[in-house]
């Protein structure tokens, strides 16, 4: 791999937190979905989701309602159903400006943590950005496991690798499917902070089951519920992220989220 470089950690420390990413300002994305049908069952119908440029949009909803499916449609993994459209604020295609973090960690089983971070560079035939990779590994707290294979990591550690890999890309638009679900409260808190810092100016769609997480990170929060599922009205908490969700100011948002989740869950499952 990399030769032992004694100055590496200092070098990393002295670097700015946000490394050179794609220089674009935030891009707005608008998904207008006619209907999504799986095996004859209509999961989503008549749905319009707007991702505001440079903002973090959080998506909550009962299990199996179709959150991940929306992400996969945006990422192009599920072909865009007929009569549906994805448009961007700058009119250009999404292609090449997206990063995606799956609900499963999807780490390459034969590659070390380090090499898992470099896979994007390698696939694109670029010179691997080892410094950035090492910095991100350090930021998610895994420098001791830099050369470990994923099968020797704990579930939460694997999730952190997947998170680091997604941040590694530096894309302008990020789709993240429950990125912190396997982490303990403290680690989660630290990584939410890290994400908030690294994701300024990025357009992010983040799926979560944790209303606290949505309140901490979300500029805009939607709840998806019902069958077929519909989006709630947007909840837009005041203040800049990352917020302190324990703040009393947010308790009414919290209960709004819970009501919407609860009100519809009964139908969905």
């Amino acid at each position, binding site marked *: 791999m990399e030769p032992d470089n004694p100055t590496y950690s200092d070098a990393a420390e002295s670097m700015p937190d946000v490394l050179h990413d*794609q220089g674009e300002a935030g891009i707005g994305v608008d998904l207008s979905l006619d209907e999504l049908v799986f095996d004859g069952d209509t999961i989503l119908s008549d749905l319009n989701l707007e991702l505001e440029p440079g903002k973090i949009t959080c998506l909550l909803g009962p299990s199996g309602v179709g959150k991940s499916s929306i992400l996969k449609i945006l*990422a*192009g*993994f599920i072909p865009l159903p007929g009569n549906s459209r994805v448009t961007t604020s700058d009119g250009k295609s999404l*292609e*090449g*400006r*997206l*990063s*995606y973090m*799956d609900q*499963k960690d*999807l780490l*390459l*089983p*034969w590659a070390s943590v380090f090499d898992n971070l470099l*896979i*994007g560079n*390698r*696939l*694109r*035939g*670029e010179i691997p950005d080892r410094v950035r990779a090492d910095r991100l590994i350090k930021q998610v707290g895994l420098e001791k496991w830099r050369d470990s*294979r994923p*099968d020797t990591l704990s579930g939460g550690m694997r999730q952190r690798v997947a998170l680091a890999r997604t941040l590694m*890309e530096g*894309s302008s638009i990020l789709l993240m499917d429950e990125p912190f679900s396997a982490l303990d409260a403290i680690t989660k808190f630290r990584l939410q902070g890290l994400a908030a810092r690294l994701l300024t100016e990025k357009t992010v769609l983040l799926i979560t089951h944790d209303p606290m997480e949505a309140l901490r990170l979300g500029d805009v929060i939607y709840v998806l519920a019902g069958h077929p599922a519909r989006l709630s009205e947007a909840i837009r908490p005041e203040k800049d992220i990352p917020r302190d969700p324990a703040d009393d100011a947010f308790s009414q948002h919290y209960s709004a989220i819970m009501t919407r989740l609860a009100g519809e869950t009964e139908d969905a499952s």
Partner: protein
Amino acid sequence: MRLLRAGITLAGFLLIWGLITAILGLPKFLLPSPLIVAEALLTHASLIADNAMTTAIEILVGLILGVLFGMVSALLISAYRPVKQWVFPLLIASQAIPVFAIAPLLVLWLGYGMAPKIVMSLLIIYFPVTVGFLDGLNRTEPVWLNLAGLLQQSGRTGRFRKLVNLYLYIKIPFALPSLASGIRVAAAIAPIGAVVGEWVGASSGLGYLMLHANARVQTDLMFASLLVLTAMALLIYYLIDALLLRALPWLSTHNNNTTQ
């Protein structure tokens, strides 16, 4: 330990063989006793060794080329649908061709040197490699392809370079276990590949020696050569098996008892 066990297997095998010849009273020209074969092995030691050398080289060249060709074929077939649709049937058809049917053609085009032997053993060896690897390549899970496709979208390199990288970093690693399985089969049949190659026409090699001994009713020499061939087969198989296990460490997890 492994060697010890191999030794014991060998001894047991020789014992059974000896018993069969002794109890059934099989005549020497049908199945010579191990003792007679051992004697022939000693008497003709240098003859056998010389010919074994030729066959060993053929096996090695056949295996290396077979594995290479097989891998290249599988890659081409998996990467280019047309190749699969048009060329793959020919490959399958080639498996059904008996050596004597095309021996004259091979001789016509390639002469009596190493070339026709290598082509014959190639035909035999490379097929399991191709099918094994191809199956592995085709079985890459779609999530990985999706993810890799997304990661590649922002790349500035050409389509071809991206395809190469996709194979290099995703498809091939995932297909390695299947490739290993194919190589294992290939390793086991490589010796017969070389022998069949020698049938096309040869002036040395264990297959040649066996044909020769068979024609001269020297059953002891034939079985001595067969024994050496078999020993080579086993050696090659276990050598390759060991190599494969080393090359794919993340697959041998099932050997120790710790978990995922």
